[in-house]
């Protein structure tokens, strides 16, 4: 379901398209797409307005809506350090690489809420894109690889718990 939202920011009127699937919002503005994840209230970094339902992935890295900057036009997530709850990691939820291959795209960043089965990372092996789903619902605590990395089977890709 797609909705239009209009708002005023610093005297300029913006109109963006908002589409929600699960806990992910797809925002469209002047032909650019931004994918953001909704975080539970308590996971919001301090300082963000408590009434804000949408927490962009990592807040600091979200490009301003104006001018339509070139960065993150697609759904590839910046993996910059987040102010989100990286501190609370424990070794339990390590997501291993299912096979030897190259990390092609990382779909989430630290602090994102993921659902069980949600594709969190795309690997490439034998010239084939392979979706790696999250084995559990939780919060991404750490992303251990970056796009372009060659990983061995069982190597830790990220920590979700």
């Amino acid at each position, binding site marked *: 379901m797609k909705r239009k939202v209009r708002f005023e920011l610093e005297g300029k009127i913006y109109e963006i398209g908002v589409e929600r699937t699960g806990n992910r919002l797809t925002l469209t503005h002047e032909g650019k797409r931004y994918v953001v994840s909704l975080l539970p209230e308590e996971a919001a970094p301090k300082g963000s307005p408590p009434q804000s339902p949408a927490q962009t992935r990592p807040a600091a890295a979200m490009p301003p809506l104006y001018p339509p900057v070139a960065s993150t036009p697609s759904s590839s997530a910046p993996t910059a350090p987040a102010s989100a709850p990286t501190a609370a990691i424990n070794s339990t939820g390590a997501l291993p690489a*299912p*096979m030897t291959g190259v990390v092609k795209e990382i779909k989430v960043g630290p602090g994102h809420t993921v659902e069980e*089965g949600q594709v969190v990372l795309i690997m490439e092996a*034998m010239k*084939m894109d*392979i*979706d790696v*789903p999250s084995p559990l619902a939780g919060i991404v605590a750490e992303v251990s690889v970056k796009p372009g990395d060659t990983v061995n089977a069982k190597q830790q890709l990220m920590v979700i718990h």
Partner: protein
Amino acid sequence: MSILRIIADFFTSTGFAALSLGNIGMLAVGGLLIYLGIARKYEPLLLIPIGFGAILVNLPLSGIQEEGGLIWYIYFGIRSGIFPPLIFLGVGAMTDFGPLLSKPQTFLLGAAAQFGIFSTLLGAKALGFDFAEAASIAIIGGADGPTAIYLTSRLADHLLGPIAVAAYSYMALVPIIQPPVIRALTTKKERMVVMSEVKPVSRRVRILFPILTTIATALLVPAATPLIGMLMLGNLFREAGVVDRLSKTAQNELINIVTIFLGVAVGSKMSAEEFLTLKTIMIIGLGLAAFMVGTAAGTLLGKLMYVISKGKVNPMIGAAGVSAVPMAARVVQKVGQKANPGNFLLMNAMGPNVAGVIGSAIAAGVLLALAG
């Protein structure tokens, strides 16, 4: 002499006057192959030179295909049986037999998928093809282009055009042909089976494998030696670790150069008299049947292994036993992940897949021996 007469004489010396309806039909076929290669990305490395070769030989009067013509010389590589083994040298250098060596029992699946070849042989014989022709058509079921070209050039080279086109088209269509067959023969529970990881094998095993396989195969099926020998030499280059230059040349420059000549030469066999016939339609139908039976046979043996292993083997990996590398393994990965998003069968499917390459080359050797 009137000016009209001169114009008329000139016209009869152009290709237009000699262009037959069959030629025009084949120009369209050549154009279609180029289109499929470029727009649909169906094996473009082969279909583009094959399509262009078909166009070249259907433009009359150039003499390009007659003795002493350009294509006549290029075709030497097929007539002599040199090109396909050279392609295999590159394939060997590109292929990691690790997944097969890690789980040697998957070799059986690569063998089972060759069953499509032998069932199609009987089907083609029943449709009236002689043994040499039927064997050449049946090898399409091995899903291996160079093997199909090699065997056909030895046994029935007048069918080379349609057989090569059918073999490469079906390889491109593996992702469409295989899933329905796999789904029809397996339950969702079977497709969801997660297999244990493919463990790395030691360098010594990787080096010994090509040498021992060559010796064993050449003694068992001598006629398969040119294909298997070159495949294994390429693989030895890869695994030796000290001849990187040779390995890189075999899997890049050499295979690319040979591919250009192989494609054009195969295309040159697509003359109207030999291609626009009922036989071509039958070959395309039989080739499809061979492919589907091969997929089914591999999957069924996979099911047997599933039972024997008490559910540890995913029966689908048997479908990867047809040697279309790595397309068939990708199909298994895709269908498996659809049944269970956490299921990654790619590497497990590569075992039967690379076994299929060896299997179809051995099958070609057996057919050659039977026809000889």
